[in-house]
């Protein structure tokens, strides 16, 4: 496990995952153009951007759903090609998509080990339950019982199960696609705690999010995409909300800043 200091130090080390000049076009539409991205172990990198900025395409390139037209991917110092979702998983990149892909009719243990069951012709339920408990404990997850069917869990608990499942293969990099999009306040906090646990465990985390508050709460770095290109790479501790929004929208004068300006103007009058 990586201590917080080591996480800060990690910037000086070589990144575990490194994308250079990734481009991807769908017909005439250029979804990604020369995109660079670095992820270190024990680091949470948030990818933000407006709709259509290329976040999802970038995630799908890493997950092996799309293969890039140009550019190189370096994973653990060697150049790799990610040609299929299975190849991505085998490398050690786990992706938790927004729709979670859980089986509602199965219990938590079965979902965690789905496709990776221990024992083929005589499932070792004891071993699987033991490992599930210890994994969920490490994540400080609040699940009523590991034998509850997933249908009976709340949105935050389902997200927790989906994230925990991605950790079964001990991945190096975990990609979370909008993990808090559909959640309430308390459940969002739960998932953000979970993201911090992932960082403590030494995983490199890529967090796709629309929610700036979440990004500023957990991310170490923010990578901004705009119209399929890199448009800023900030350390969260050194950047303001306005700067990020400016990078997302491509200007410091935009709807969001004008609104903020108008409000502060009104406050000044009072």
């Amino acid at each position, binding site marked *: 496990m990586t201590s917080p200091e080591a996480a800060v130090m990690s910037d000086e080390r070589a990144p575990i995952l490194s994308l250079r000049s990734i481009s991807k076009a769908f017909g005439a539409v250029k979804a990604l153009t020369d995109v660079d991205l670095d992820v270190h172990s024990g680091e949470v990198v948030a990818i933000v951007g407006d709709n259509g900025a290329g976040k999802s395409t970038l995630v799908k390139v890493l997950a092996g759903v799309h293969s890039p037209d140009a550019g190189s991917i370096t994973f653990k110092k060697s150049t790799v090609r990610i040609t299929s979702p299975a190849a991505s998983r085998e490398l050690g990149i786990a992706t938790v998509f927004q*729709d979670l*892909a859980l*089986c509602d*009719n199965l219990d938590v243990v079965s979902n965690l080990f789905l496709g990776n069951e221990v024992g083929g012709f005589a*499932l070792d339920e004891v071993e699987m339950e*033991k490992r599930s*408990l210890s994994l969920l404990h490490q994540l400080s997850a609040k699940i009523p*019982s590991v034998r509850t069917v997933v249908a009976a869990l709340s949105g935050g608990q389902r997200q927790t199960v989906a994230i925990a499942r991605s950790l079964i293969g001990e991945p190096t990099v975990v990609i979370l696609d909008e993990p808090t999009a559909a959640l309430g306040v308390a459940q969002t906090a739960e998932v953000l705690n979970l993201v911090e646990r992932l960082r403590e465990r030494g995983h490199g985390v890529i967090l796709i999010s629309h929610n700036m508050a979440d990004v500023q709460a957990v991310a170490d770095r923010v990578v901004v995409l705009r119209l399929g290109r890199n448009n800023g790479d900030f350390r969260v501790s050194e950047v303001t909300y306005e700067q990020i929004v400016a990078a997302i929208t491509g200007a410091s004068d935009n709807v969001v800043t004008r609104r903020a300006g108008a409000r502060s103007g009104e406050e000044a009058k009072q």
Partner: protein
Amino acid sequence: MIDINNQNTPLEFESGAAAGRGVLGYWQVFRKRIGAGDLGALPVVAGLVIIWAVFQILNPFFLSAANLSNLALECAAIGTIAVGVVLVLLIAQIDLSIGSIGGLASAVVAYGFVLHGWPLWLSIVVAVIAAVAIGLIYGLIFTRFGVPSFVITLAGLMGFLGLQLAILGTNGSINIPFDSWVVVFAQQMFIPAPVAYVLVAIAVGLYVTSTYLNSRRRSAAGLSATSSREIFFKSALLVVLLGAASWYLNTSRGIGLMFLLFVLIVIVMNYALTRTRWGRSVYAIGGNVEAARRAGIPVNRVVISVFILGTTLAAIGGILATARLASAGVSSGGGDTNLVAIAAAVIGGTSLFGGRGNAWSALLGIVVIQSIASGLTLLSLSSSIRFMITGSVLLLAVVIDSLSRRSRAMHGQG
């Protein structure tokens, strides 16, 4: 006996349902499960008790050993087909052609064995291989072309009925000699009383050993485990139930060997579904096929294997039915065979929506349906009444399934 209390309840989690909390704990867990829409076998067992009580009041012969012994034999053939239906329903598909495949299998056996003098075993093997091939074709068409299984098997229903008629030719019906072993097996072979008790002892012994070893492993791993007391009570209950049933049926002819075969098929399928990776994949595909695919499950292969098992069990059931009647004819596997087999699976508690149910539901469902049939026959009521009552029971079962599904969905949002 070692006292295994779960002093070391792991962390803040709770993995067992009610271990070590006594009768009250069980009752609370039970209430909670029912409230959350997890009804299990409760509705069908309750229904069965009511049906048996009503018929016993109307006709005291109903619960006699002779009638129950006969009832068990009546269940075996279509029950075996229903096990296949359960498997197909679990992956949220349907096989409408089971009756035709059963009929085809019986025609093949009669054709080979009676008309062409093949050895009986060879005729049966040929019939089963034909069924495997049919299941393979269904599975391939389904996975390659994405045609709904409803349509594929509807085509199969008509096509294989035609093939059955073609094989029987102008004969209409072919009698199978009464002294052939398959007919003797289905009509006259019953488990001798001493053997029945030995089997009960073996079954309970296996249950106790496996539960005890499992509970020891669980407590060694720090998980909540079944207490020795609970294991003892459950085993005692099992001994009393199975022992009493064996004793009672043995006051008449006893337990038919064909029924034992059916129960063995149910037990093997139950093991495959609950304790193997294949079974877990079947449930996963029925629950969320996309999730199963993303988890790396070979969805197509599992689906094909399920279709093959469905048609194979249909053929075995068809052969058992033929053996019981000692004849194969144009009506073998026809009439209500299809509907009764599918109804049995659903009445037993297997969801039409996929992913929920178990092999035992085939046994429970067919016992319910055949009890109704047997009771009404004893009251000398016509089959028109039987169809209407069975239809109502089926409708009730589907309504219960839908309601419990809705209840689960509501509790899932909490």
